[in-house]
């Protein structure tokens, strides 16, 4: 028997072997709960069930010194059956927790050889006895508690937990629970068809880390009643679990050696997810909340047991800390000197404690409110597990501590202090560090929401709907919005590490380029607001380190710390970079690695590492001359290195179209923006929340794969792209473009919630790619073709009129490059703008300047895309023509009277000659 006096001093903090630990409190009988098992006095054994347990405890403290005044003197701790709950605490009391004594203890092994470790996380506030529901008598005999079928229904005071049943249920859970569909990363390497937790126990026996994490969801699916008890009375139920698991463990692995007994750490309690929803009903319950660590305190040694020594006779006594208070013995029991007991600090027991402040994660917060914070206490090995800035899920017991009644004061503050005693931390961003695939946060969707999303996905025009819901305040630019939409969805992440190529980029990069004032920034701002992990930087204001990462010395610890920049922060998100062109070359060069390999390599100040930066880049740039110069190529206009440009999947031009119909629609759009009420707008478009959910769902759950036809279509498309260039002796498509196409097609399949990439996806990818390409290169090509066409016409000599189709065929025959009809039309239009020729219906005429005819003639050739709604547009059109004529001052106009019947698809051509 270990008496207090024989306890060797110098125990390390946290290595407390005190059997009266809170972990033993629940299941055991009252005497043993209160004091160290061997020195409970019998005098105060019977707390009245009606009075709070806490009241009873304090008076008992000073007298507890006699060694064998236990109510069960005959029951020696080592004689107690291991299966009895008593066995949990009693044997352990005989073994000291210091490393030296553990060496002694270990050979005996088994549950009795392993010290129990105190669980301050469960608190010591409520030390409740068990009560018999029928007799209303507190149970004093531990043996009764282990006999659930003795006719009495024994429960822990204040709860409906019966220790025996609870333990049995939990053991059954451990032995039988199988979750074949488990996808959690920590279950990697385990056989999913075997009982999960038994494998974990095996792991414990091998690794020696005596912590068993139990997913509450598993408990719930196995036994809902047990789960309810766990949530409602964690303080009582978790020690029971501890007991159960230790019995089971040492039964199976009788020879294993552990530092201390296994502790059960439940996590993932379903009840509360959000800090804001905590309310008084959650007090003393098991909760799980998510948040961000904002502050951690220094380590606080918290006294668990005070050691007193008599100054006169050196007799020592111990006093346990009860709710932060130590009952100092007034009289030495040995020599009866009063006030001779002095506290000896280095023989007292301390445990680690740390205060951590958690703040609501920004995503959980309603707009316009400030985030809430909660104080969390971590104990023992959970201390220093988290750092400020970490996103964590915390499972713990929610506590509210009333203000202490101060006898000197008549009235007190009526406020409680609240905190959470943490039982389990789970870093939500941990996976990002491991580089594991898929989204770290599993956004939870309700059944209803998923249903709505699926319904939406089933609609044939979902793609159009979504793209028009994107930034509705920005007018038109449908293709650009579609491109951005696909960027938001992203491709499928592929891993070719085994074949040596590593990861394939799944994110789509887009460059928007164009005239100032075409709401590029607004689009960026919108995207930044839409995605959960978006970053917005301006090229002008960001430096290379601001984008990547930098090393700095922490002022407090003098340690080197890696501070991450925008690109790393937007891992799995979108990094919006405005004013891309104004970025310094140095800064831009870091993007090369990010935009293809999606990693960032840092080698500075002794830190060499590679960070993940799997971010999609959405950049906006202004042309060099601030206005787009149509005479120049894209590259000349943006003056970005080709190496960087090729990393963009889509390069869009945002130009001011300068076209009347466009103006009209734009005007209508803007005006309606100003007078329509919010609700009207809502009706027209999907709201942002819906869009967000849709994207999140698709990104998480949909992983499309290429179908056979789709691959064929992709190959064809690629070959076509190569062909276009090859004629010119230059290569216009690289494998990178093929990858782009694949990504876009995958993203489009995701939009449809389709697990398979089909031909339509490839078609759309092709179309977008072409569209972007056309935007970017069309202007230059048009100039070229126009010149070629001019030459062709000149070679034809003085033929006044040519057939449209004939001309096109001729040009096609002459040119090495493929000339599309659209391109041809544009070239014609360009020439017509230069007053070189006129087009009437299907015939093309050289301008009357060259024709035989009246010497002076003005010719106006206007192309007009008319939409059905714009009948009166022709009126404006007339006036415009008249103005042009008037400005030239040369001829009167004779305009075809049938302009009012122009169809939208037609190209209306009006010529006028002075006849």
């Amino acid at each position, binding site marked *: 028997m270990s008496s207090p006096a024989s306890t060797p001093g110098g125990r390390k903090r946290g290595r407390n072997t005190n059997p009266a630990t809170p972990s033993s409190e629940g299941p055991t009988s009252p005497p043993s709960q209160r004091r160290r098992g061997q020195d409970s006095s019998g005098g105060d054994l019977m707390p009245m069930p009606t009075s709070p347990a806490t009241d009873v405890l304090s008076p008992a403290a000073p007298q507890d010194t006699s060694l064998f005044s236990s109510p069960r003197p005959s029951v020696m701790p080592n004689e107690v059956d291991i299966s009895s709950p008593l066995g949990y605490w009693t044997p352990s009391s005989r073994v000291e927790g210091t490393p030296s004594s553990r060496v002694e203890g270990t050979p005996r092994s088994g549950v009795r050889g392993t010290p129990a470790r105190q669980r301050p996380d469960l608190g010591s506030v409520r030390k409740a006895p068990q009560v018999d529901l029928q007799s209303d008598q507190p149970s004093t005999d531990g043996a009764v508690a282990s006999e659930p079928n003795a006719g009495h229904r024994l429960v822990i005071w204040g709860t409906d937990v019966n220790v025996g049943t609870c333990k049995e249920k939990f053991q059954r859970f451990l032995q039988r629970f199988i979750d074949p569909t488990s996808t959690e990363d920590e279950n990697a390497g385990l056989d999913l068809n075997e009982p999960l937790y038994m494998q974990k126990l095996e792991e414990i026996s091998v690794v020696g880390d005596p912590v068993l994490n139990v997913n509450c969801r598993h408990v719930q699916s196995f036994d809902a009643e047990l789960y309810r008890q766990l949530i409602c009375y964690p303080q009582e139920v978790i020690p029971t679990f501890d007991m159960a698991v230790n019995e089971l463990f040492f039964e199976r692995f009788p020879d294993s050696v552990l530092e201390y007994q296994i502790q059960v750490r439940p996590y993932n309690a379903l009840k509360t997810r959000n800090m804001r929803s905590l309310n008084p009903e959650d007090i003393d319950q098991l909760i799980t909340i998510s948040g961000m660590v904002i502050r951690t305190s220094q380590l606080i040694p918290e006294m668990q047991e005070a050691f007193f020594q008599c100054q006169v006779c050196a007799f020592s006594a111990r006093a346990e800390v009860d709710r932060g208070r130590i009952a100092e013995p007034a009289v030495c029991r040995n020599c009866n000197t009063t006030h001779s007991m002095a506290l000896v600090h280095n023989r007292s027991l301390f445990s680690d404690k740390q205060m951590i402040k958690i703040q609501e994660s920004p995503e959980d917060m309603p707009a*316009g409110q400030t985030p809430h914070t909660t104080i969390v206490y971590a104990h023992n090995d959970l201390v220093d597990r988290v750092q400020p800035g970490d996103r964590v899920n915390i499972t713990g017991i929610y506590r509210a501590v009333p203000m202490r009644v101060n006898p000197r004061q008549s009235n007190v*503050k009526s406020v409680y202090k609240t905190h959470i005693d943490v039982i389990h931390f789970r870093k939500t961003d941990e996976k990002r560090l491991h580089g594991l695939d898929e989204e770290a946060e599993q956004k939870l969707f309700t059944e209803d929401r998923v249903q709505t999303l699926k319904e939406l996905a089933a609609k044939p025009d979902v793609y159009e709907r979504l793209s028009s819901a994107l930034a509705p305040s920005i007018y038109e630019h449908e293709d650009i919005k579609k491109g951005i939409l696909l960027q938001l969805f992203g491709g499928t992440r592929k891993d070719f590490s085994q074949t040596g190529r590593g990861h394939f980029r799944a994110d789509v990069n887009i460059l928007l380029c164009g005239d100032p004032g075409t709401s590029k920034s607004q689009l960026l701002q919108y995207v930044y607001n839409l995605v959960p992990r978006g970053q917005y930087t301006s090229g002008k204001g960001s430096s290379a380190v601001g984008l990547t990462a930098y090393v700095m010395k922490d002022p407090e610890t003098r340690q080197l710390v890696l501070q991450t920049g925008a690109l790393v922060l937007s891992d799995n998100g979108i990094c919006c970079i405005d004013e891309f062109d104004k970025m310094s070359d140095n800064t831009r060069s870091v993007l090369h690695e990010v935009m293809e390999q999606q990693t960032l390599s840092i080698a500075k100040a002794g830190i060499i590492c590679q960070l993940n930066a799997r971010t999609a880049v959405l950049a906006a740039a202004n042309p060099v001359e601030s206005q787009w110069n149509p005479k120049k190529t894209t590259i000349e206009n943006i003056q970005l290195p080709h190496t960087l440009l090729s990393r963009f999947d889509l390069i869009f031009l945002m130009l001011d179209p300068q076209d*009347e119909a466009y103006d009209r629609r734009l005007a209508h759009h803007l005006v309606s923006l100003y007078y329509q009420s919010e609700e009207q707008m809502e009706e027209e478009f999907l709201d942002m929340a819906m869009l967000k959910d849709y994207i999140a769902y698709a990104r998480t759950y949909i992983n499309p794969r290429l179908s056979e036809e789709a691959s064929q279509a992709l190959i064809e498309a690629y070959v076509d792209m190569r062909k276009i260039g090859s004629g010119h002796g230059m290569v216009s498509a690289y494998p990178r473009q093929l990858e782009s196409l694949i990504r876009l097609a995958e993203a489009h399949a995701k939009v449809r919630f389709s697990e398979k990439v089909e031909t339509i996806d490839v078609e759309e990818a092709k179309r977008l790619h072409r569209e972007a390409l056309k935007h970017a290169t069309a202007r230059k090509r048009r100039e070229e073709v126009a010149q070629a066409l001019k030459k062709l016409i000149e070679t034809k000599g003085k033929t006044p009129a040519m057939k449209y189709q004939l001309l096109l065929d001729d040009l096609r025959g002459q040119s090495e490059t493929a000339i599309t009809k659209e391109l041809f039309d544009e070239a014609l239009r360009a020439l017509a703008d230069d007053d070189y020729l006129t087009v009437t219906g299907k015939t093309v005429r050289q301008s009357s300047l060259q024709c035989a005819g009246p010497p002076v003639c003005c010719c106006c050739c206007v192309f007009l895309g008319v939409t059905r709604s714009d009948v009166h547009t022709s009126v404006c059109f007339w006036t415009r023509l008249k103005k042009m004529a008037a400005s030239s001052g040369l001829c009167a106009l004779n305009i075809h009277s049938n302009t009012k019947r122009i169809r939208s698809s037609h190209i209306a051509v009006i010529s006028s000659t002075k006849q």
Partner: protein
Amino acid sequence: MPSTHDWINDPLGVVEGMFAASQSSQSSGWEKKAVEFFKEQLKEKEAQTLVPSLNDVPLHYLKPDSLVKFRCLVQDMFDPEFFMGVYETVDPATQARTLRCGKYKDVTESGVDVNSRSTVTAERQTFYCVPIPGENHNQGRVVPSTSYVPSRQKRSYEEDEEMEVQPQKQKETHAASLNAADPHGNGDCKRQETEAPSGQAASASHLDLNFPLPGEKGPSCLVKVYEDWERFKLNDTLQVYGVLSVSPAFSALADEKDSFLDPVGMESAAEQRVHSPPASLVPRLHLLHAERLEHNNPLLPGAALQENSTFLSSALGEMAAVRAELLSYFTHVLLGDALAAEFLLLHLLSSVYSRRDVLPLGKFTLNLSGCPTGAAYTQRLYQIIQQLVPSSFYLPMSLQNMNQIRLVPRKDYVANRLVSGALQLASSTSLFLDETQMEPGQLDPTGVRNVTALGNLITWQKVDYDFNFHQMEFPCNINVLIASEGRSLLPSDCHIHLQPQVAPPHLEEYLSSIHVHPQASSQLNKFRVFLSLARLLDYNISDEVTKAVEDDFVDMRKDDPQSISADDLHRMLVVARLLSLSLGQTSLSRDVWLRSKHIETLRRSRMEQHKSVNGNEP
């Protein structure tokens, strides 16, 4: 039914009465009934004015545990706290147990049985509220018939001279002419004093009361909210009615911080100071009823305008006339530049009335360039604006100021509070940026951040509060006026160059003559009503006019596609809106559209002109 005086002087008595009644009759929902009761009482005519206001009456004149009102801005939101909603006390002598209500109180009665089973834990939320920042007290706020009526002296201009940096310093010399006829017979307030000590602010110096603007004074308040706190947002302006709690016992409790007795006393000293400052400095207010203020102009009726149709119709009728007067006044102030005066007037009416995605609609930031640098013209201009708008702030953009001042609120995790910044302003505050104070030099990182913050504020009408690990965006509605010599370095919706009609030699003389004569204060009041009213009016565009506007735009684009962009249409629509509102018209008419087009064209042509004259301007 309790009499009027009871519910103002002893609201807790009323609450407790209801609580006791509910205990005996077992009827639930007494809390709702209590709140309803106060709401009803406050609906009565004149009832609101009977309640003393914390803004106007020094704290020591108010009776503890009485009902007071407070016009304030929610500056910070603390964590919700749990308290004993119902608790049981034991009389030490008789052992008699009594149930008591802990609502609307900070401290309990003596002899609490902490372990009683009948204790009900309830939850409440604490807001840290400050008086509306930049509120201009020279608007003749008259709060009739409280127990204490301060009469203020109008600020003299000599004082204003020295207030360049801290224009909001309110020299409140309370010439305390105590209202002899104390209507409530309130014993505490009856002390006959001739001079109210101005000590309140002096003693506050060691404690940072966290006002957004430097040099602000006034009581800040911890408002405890018992229900629906989700409906309040940060930076809301509220009129709060609640039970004033300045119990000395409470302060004593706070002082005697049982740091080692407290089992969870891990709060840092800084946090302690912030979250429970002495009640004598930061009183607690237990909220019974709160109204969100649409405006803080005391000259306008408080309730929704639509309900007050007589006021509205009479004011609308006068509007055109007042507008003309105000315009001529502004013309006079702006050195005879009528066009600039027109734009200034429109600017003062602007307000963000809606947001589309990220785009705020209705903002109209004006950049007034070409301000004469001499003779402190910009400051004089600010003083005039200050007299007209309910709340305003003058920010000289000197290099030093930009490098030092804290514009963006920042979360201080040590003290666990939101440290305020100058941009934490109530909606519809006028922010006057004086760029003429800027001199060449280097902006340090703080300066760059500050300028970026101002740019964001102007473009998106939002401020990104700094939460250290992340930023959080708070939308705002602040009218920004930039006075500069050349074009401002900040973006603006509308830029106009001042063309003084006064010859420079006479400038000094002219400027010194600009001020409002004291006898014209009735006219000033008219201006104030006009400005506040116009921005509250509803506005719409009929389909017909919409069509016309669209056509116009298309035509304009046709003539000159280079110079007219979507941004110009945006601006013209805002100008048209503001112009109609300034004329008291709630829907856009063809005439107003043409007129706004006209002034916009004038402005553009002036800018073109200016550009050609001054070639080096960007």
